[in-house]
C-alpha cells in the first residue's frame, strides 16, 4: 500500500487516461492538436473530473514543463478583486515562450469569486486573450456572470456512470493490493453517487481497516466521516423534542460541516423509510420540498432546517391526536 491520498495518486495525467466524459475529452484533444484553446467554463458537480481535465489539457499541450505555462488559482481561497488585479493580470500579460503562444490560467471554484472580481476578470480576459487563456471551473455556471459566460466555451461535466465508476475503483483496488467486494463497491456508489473524489477517499479510508472491503465497512467509514445521524434527529423531532433535535442539527452543521442540502436530502429519504402513517409521508414530502426551496432563498440554513424540524414536531403531535 502506498502512502499518498489515492484520490491524488490516481488522478489521470493525460487526456487519454480520462475514462469518462468522452465528448468533452474529444473536444479538448482537438484543442491540443490545433494548438489553440478558447476561454472555457468547466461546470458540473464535485468529483467529476473538471480540475483533472484542465490539468491534463495543460500537460498535453505543453508537455513535461507544463507548470511553467500554467497557473492554478483557487477562487475559494483567493477570491477578492485584488487577486484578479494583481496575480491574474501579472500572469496573463506576459507572453509565453515556446511553441504555444499563450499560457493557461485555471481558476478553480470560480463560482466563489465575488461579482466585483468577476467584473475585473472580464476585462482582463478580453485584454490579454493573445497571451493567456482562462479555464473557469465551477459547480454552478449560473454563478458566473453573464458577460464572462458569453466569452467562454461551456463544458458540462456529469457524474460518472456506475460502470466507469466501478472500473476505476477496481483498478485502484488491484494496484493497491486490496480486496474490494462487490457489495462494498455497490455501497460506495450508493453513498457517493458518482462523485469520484469522495468515492476514492471512501475506498482508501475503508482500506485503512486492513480487511476486505464490505458494505458494512463502507457505511462505517461514511458514518464516521459524516456522522449525520439524520434518522435519529427526525425521530427525536417526531417524538416532540424540538430542542434536542435542534441540538443534533447544530452538531451536524457546525461541528461536521454537513451541508444543508445534504441534510435535507437525507431527511427526505428518511421520511419514506420510517414507520408513520402512509398519507403523512407525502404530506411531509411537501413540507420538505418547501423548505428545500427556502434553503436557496434564505440566508441561514440552520434556521430553515429548524423550521422543518418544528413541522416534524407538529406532525408527530397531530398523528398522535388522530389515533
Amino acid at each position, binding site marked *: *500500500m502506498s*502512502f*499518498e*491520498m489515492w*484520490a*491524488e495518486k490516481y*488522478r489521470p495525467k493525460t487526456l487519454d487516461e480520462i475514462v469518462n466524459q468522452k465528448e468533452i475529452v474529444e473536444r479538448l484533444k482537438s484543442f491540443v492538436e490545433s494548438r489553440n484553446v478558447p476561454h472555457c467554463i468547466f461546470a458540473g458537480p*464535485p468529483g467529476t473530473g473538471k*480540475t*483533472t481535465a484542465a*490539468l491534463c489539457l495543460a500537460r498535453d499541450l505543453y508537455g513535461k514543463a507544463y507548470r511553467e505555462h500554467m497557473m*492554478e488559482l*483557487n*477562487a*475559494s*481561497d483567493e477570491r477578492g478583486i485584488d487577486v484578479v488585479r494583481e496575480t491574474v493580470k501579472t500572469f496573463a500579460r506576459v507572453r509565453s515562450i515556446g511553441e504555444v503562444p499563450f499560457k493557461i490560467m485555471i481558476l*478553480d*471554484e470560480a463560482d*466563489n469569486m465575488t461579482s466585483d472580481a468577476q467584473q475585473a476578470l472580464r476585462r482582463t480576459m478580453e485584454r490579454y486573450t493573445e497571451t493567456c487563456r482562462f479555464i473557469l471551473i465551477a459547480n454552478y455556471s449560473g454563478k458566473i456572470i453573464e458577460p464572462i459566460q458569453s466569452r467562454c466555451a461551456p463544458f458540462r461535466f456529469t457524474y460518472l456512470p456506475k460502470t466507469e465508476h466501478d472500473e476505476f475503483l477496481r483498478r485502484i483496488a488491484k494496484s493497491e493490493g486490496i480486496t474490494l467486494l462487490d457489495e462494498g463497491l455497490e455501497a460506495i456508489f450508493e453513498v457517493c453517487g458518482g462523485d469520484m473524489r*469522495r468515492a476514492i*477517499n*471512501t475506498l*482508501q*479510508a475503508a*482500506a*485503512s*481497516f*486492513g480487511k476486505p472491503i464490505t458494505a458494512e465497512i463502507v457505511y462505517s*467509514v461514511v458514518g*464516521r*466521516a*459524516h456522522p449525520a445521524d439524520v434518522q435519529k434527529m427526525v425521530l427525536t423531532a417526531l417524538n*416532540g423534542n*424540538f*430542542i434536542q433535535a*435542534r441540538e443534533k442539527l*447544530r452538531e451536524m452543521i*457546525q*461541528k*461536521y*460541516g454537513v451541508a444543508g442540502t445534504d441534510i435535507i436530502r437525507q431527511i427526505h429519504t428518511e421520511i419514506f423509510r420510517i414507520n408513520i402513517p402512509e398519507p403523512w409521508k407525502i404530506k411531509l414530502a411537501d413540507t420538505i420540498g418547501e*423548505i428545500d426551496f*427556502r434553503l436557496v*432563498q*434564505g*440566508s*441561514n440554513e*440552520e*434556521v*430553515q432546517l*429548524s*423550521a422543518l*424540524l*418544528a*413541522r416534524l*414536531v*407538529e406532525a*408527530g*403531535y*397531530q398523528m398522535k391526536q388522530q389515533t
Partner: protein
Amino acid sequence: MHMAWTRKHKPQTLKEVIGNKEAIRKLVEWVKAWDKTVPKKRAIFLYGPPGIGKTATVEALAKDFDMELVEKNASDYRTEEAVKRFAGIASQYSTLFGKKRLILFDELDGITGTQDRGGVKALTEIIKITRCPLVLIANNAYDPRFTNLRNYCLLVQFKKPPAGEVVKLLKRICLREGIDAEEEALKFIAQRSRGDVRSAINDLQALAQGKTRLTYEDVSWLAYRDRQENIFTVLKMIVYARSCMSAKQAVDMADVDPDMLFEWIYENVPRHLTHPEDLARAMDALSLADIYRGRIRSTRNWKFTRYFLDFMTAGVAMARQKTKPSGWIPFNFPKRIQALSRSKAQRKFELEIGRKIKRKFHISAYRASKEILPYIRVIFENNVNMAAGIASWLDLDAEMIKYIVSGKQAEAIIKQMEIL
C-alpha cells in the same frame, strides 16, 4: 490563592498609583506641611467617582511616609458618639512608638441622615482640634450635608485616569500573573470600564484568572453581558405580545442589531411557545424572516428589512394560540453565536491543515478541510502505517496530527513517521 486582584495588585507606593498626579502632589505637600506645624486646613477632602484609586492613594501615602493609618468607613457607625470616640486618637500626632498617624474617614457618602445623625457635625468638631492629618473621602464633596464641613477642608478632586493608563496597569497585572494578553483585549476592558479602574481589574480577573492567554474574543462577551438586562425585556415584549404593533415596537428598544435580536428570538422561541402547532407557526415565521434577509442580501435592497422585522416579531407573537401560560421561563444566550465564536479557533486550525492538503490536492483549503479531512481522520484512527505515510506526504506537524486524532494513536503515528 483566590485573592481579589484589586487587593493583590493595589499600589504599594504613590508612584504606582495611576493618573491624578496633580491631586497626589497636593496631598503630599499637605502631609509634609504637618511636619513643620499644624496647617490651616487640618483635613483634606478627596472626592471623585468610584474605583479610581482615592483610598488606594491614601494607603500608599501612609506606606511611603511610614505612618500608621487609622481607618473608619461606612461599615462603622458614624453617629456623633462613635465619631467622638475618635477624638482621643486624633488628639495625638504620633503613636506611643513615635510613628506618625494618618486618620482616614472613607466613604463619607454612606453617612445616612438618621442612623449616623450628628456624625458630620461631630466630624467637623474633630477637624477643628485634630493634631493628626485627617483625610476624608467621598464621591461627591458638594453634597449639602457637607456644606459646613467643607469650610475646614482642603478640597482635592480625583479624576478618572485616561484609558491608556488603565491599559498599562492591566498589562502590568497580566505580566505578574503570567498571562499573555492581547493589547486589544485589555483596551476593550479599559474602555468599557469608563475609568473605573477597580471594575476593570475585577473584569480582568474574572476573565483571565487561570488562563495563560487572553484574547479579544475572550473579552468581547462582556458587551453582551451588559446588554442582557435589556434584551430580556425586549424578548418578553416580543414573545408575549398580544398585538402585532406592540411586538414590532419592541425592536426599537433593543440595543442589539436586528440580526442579533433574531438570534435571541430563534434561540428562545421553543421554550416559550411549547405547543407543537404554535412552535411550528413561530419557526415558520422565523423561516420567512430569514427569507427576507436572503432577499436583502441578494438584491442589496434594504427596504426588505421591514418584512424581516415583521416576521421575526409580530410573526412570532401571533404564533401563540394554544400554548398555555406558565411560570417564569428564563431566556438563554443564543448558542449559535456562542458556538460560532468558540469554534472560530478550531476552524482556523482546520483551515491550516486544509492549506497543507491544498498543496498536494487540487482543491481549496476550505473545501479540503471539509471534504478531505474527515476521511484522513478515519484513516488516522485505523491505520498507523497509512496515517504516517499520509502525514509525511502532506507534511503535517505533530500538533496537527494530535488535532486530527487524540492521545496514543497520535503518538504512534508520529513515532512511525520517524521510522519511515
